[in-house]
């Protein structure tokens, strides 16, 4: 494939999972797009696994993405490390991992790969693209890149472009990895790799995923396994323990270079193409229905960013529903606030499917 940067990349492997049955008309497909650290395994239990897929609460029989009715597909994004080609994949020209020689990819490239996957599966159009955070960006990108192939778009806790603050947090995460001597310019495969740097990068991420109120409720100033301050730098507070645990467990499951590439893709994401067109122009002629959901305490992807997308769609005489859900969970709310999101998503999809059936009749 030719990437947005003009660089050629291939062959590209794509890992995907599918749930529910495809109708003979192939008109009940929902494409689930995952966030930064997610993968194709969105629902159900893998053999031998103890934890279900990352969005199991949403996907299944009778759930918001009802697999009795819809054919739900989720694929790992380009640049990630869960089966789809990324920096840790083997470069066929050298027989060694790409490492830093992997080309920089964009959200548009991720969508291009998903489109090719669907084409391979014989699916021309989807009922909906849906995702939270980085997944929401892909869902929106679909509407802009393949407007005729997307009946509806559900963007959750997401944005039309990364703001300076969002880029800033990503840059700190990248610097944490690249400052670790074990990163070795990105050629660390076969060694331990930048474990400390990656852990710090993930700790920064987790700070931005929680709200100040949520953190206060979850940890407060509680101490970890001690009655009073240690007056040292071991471990005093519960919140420190939480962040260290999140950092350490991430090291075991994610590739540091993938984090560099994916955060870069997020930072490049801008539906206004650097301000050369308005958001309204970006969605011009796009027939999709839009559902945008934001969370009151999400300060990483503040609600006004989702609201701005809904406004832009409306300025084009398009159809956009917007809902801001009250939550203390911060950005993490898109994975946690099921009870509030589910009826909105389910009803929205039902309506899209109903209109689709009527158009068929």
């Amino acid at each position: 494939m030719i990437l947005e940067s003009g660089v050629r990349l291939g062959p590209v492997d794509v890992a995907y999972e599918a749930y529910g049955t495809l109708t003979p008309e192939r008109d009940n497909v929902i494409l689930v797009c995952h966030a930064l650290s997610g993968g194709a395994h969105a629902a159900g239990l893998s053999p031998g696994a103890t934890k279900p897929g990352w969005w199991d609460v949403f996907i299944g029989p009778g759930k918001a993405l009802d697999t009795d009715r819809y054919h739900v597909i989720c694929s790992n994004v380009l640049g990630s490390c869960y089966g789809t080609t990324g920096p840790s994949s083997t470069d066929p020209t050298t027989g060694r991992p790409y490492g830093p020689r992997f080309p920089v990819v964009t959200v548009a490239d991720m969508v291009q790969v998903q489109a090719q996957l669907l084409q391979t599966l014989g699916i021309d159009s989807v009922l909906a693209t849906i995702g939270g955070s980085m997944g929401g960006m892909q869902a929106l990108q679909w509407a802009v890149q393949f407007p005729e192939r997307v009946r509806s778009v559900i963007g959750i806790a997401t944005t039309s472009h990364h703001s300076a603050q969002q880029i800033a947090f990503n840059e700190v995460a990248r610097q944490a990895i690249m400052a670790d001597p074990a990163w070795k310019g990105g050629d660390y495969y076969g060694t331990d790799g930048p474990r400390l740097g990656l852990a710090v990068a993930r700790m920064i991420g987790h700070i931005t995923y929680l709200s100040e109120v949520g953190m206060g409720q979850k940890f407060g100033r509680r101490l970890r396994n001690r009655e009073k301050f240690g007056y040292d730098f071991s471990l005093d507070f519960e919140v420190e323990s939480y962040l260290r645990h999140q950092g350490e467990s991430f090291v075991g499951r994610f590739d540091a270079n993938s984090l560099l590439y994916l955060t870069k893709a997020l930072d490049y994401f801008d539906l206004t193409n650097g301000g050369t067109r308005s958001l309204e122009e970006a969605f011009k002629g796009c027939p999709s229905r839009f559902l945008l959901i934001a969370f009151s305490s999400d300060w990483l992807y503040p609600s006004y960013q989702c609201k701005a997308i809904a406004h832009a769609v409306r300025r084009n005489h398009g159809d956009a529903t917007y809902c801001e859900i009250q939550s203390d969970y911060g950005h993490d709310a898109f994975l946690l606030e099921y009870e509030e999101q589910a009826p909105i998503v389910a009803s929205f999809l039902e309506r899209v499917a109903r209109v689709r059936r009527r158009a068929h009749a």
Partner: protein
Amino acid sequence: MPEQTENRQAIYDWIMTRTAARSRVLDVGCGDGELLSRLAEQREVEACGIEISQQCVIRAVQRGLTVHHGNAEEGLFNYPDGCFDLVILSLAMQELEHPRNVLRECFRVGRRVVVVFPAFGHWKARWQLALAGRAPVTGSFPHAWYESPNRHYLTVKDWESFCADEQWRFIDRGFLRQGATVRRLPNLRAEVALYLLESTVDIMD
């Protein structure tokens, strides 16, 4: 919103009969979308709503409506000029902070506007204020002064002179009391006033 239990059906019916089939309708303060979903079913309108309460927004989406969750005082600004055939402001105006701004926005985005409001000139309200010397608590104004969502108290006369000032012409008007139509002395006898209006000035200046 005042409950208006007795008048609710009559209000819906009044609006229903004045809504063109298959038109584009915006309900400002749509609540749980009851009116809009009826209009969608019976008039096949393309229905949109604006609503400030999260629970109401969820209910309205469950009814299959397009809804914007937000404050009407800021939410109309992104609909293009004249993009609705009808904008409905039913039992919401008296709770707005800046009703004139929102009404002007309604006339910008809609060709016609329905306004429904509780009429403060009702004799019970006058009676309680004039003779008992108390802030009125009536069927249309059921809340004590300290917990009322209402910010504005207007009479039929107030409204009609305001409409004249704004150059909004009423195409039709109706008055209700206990679910029934009021024909004589509406300013004194109506609990609820209903107006179908259009602007007589070109707002695209």
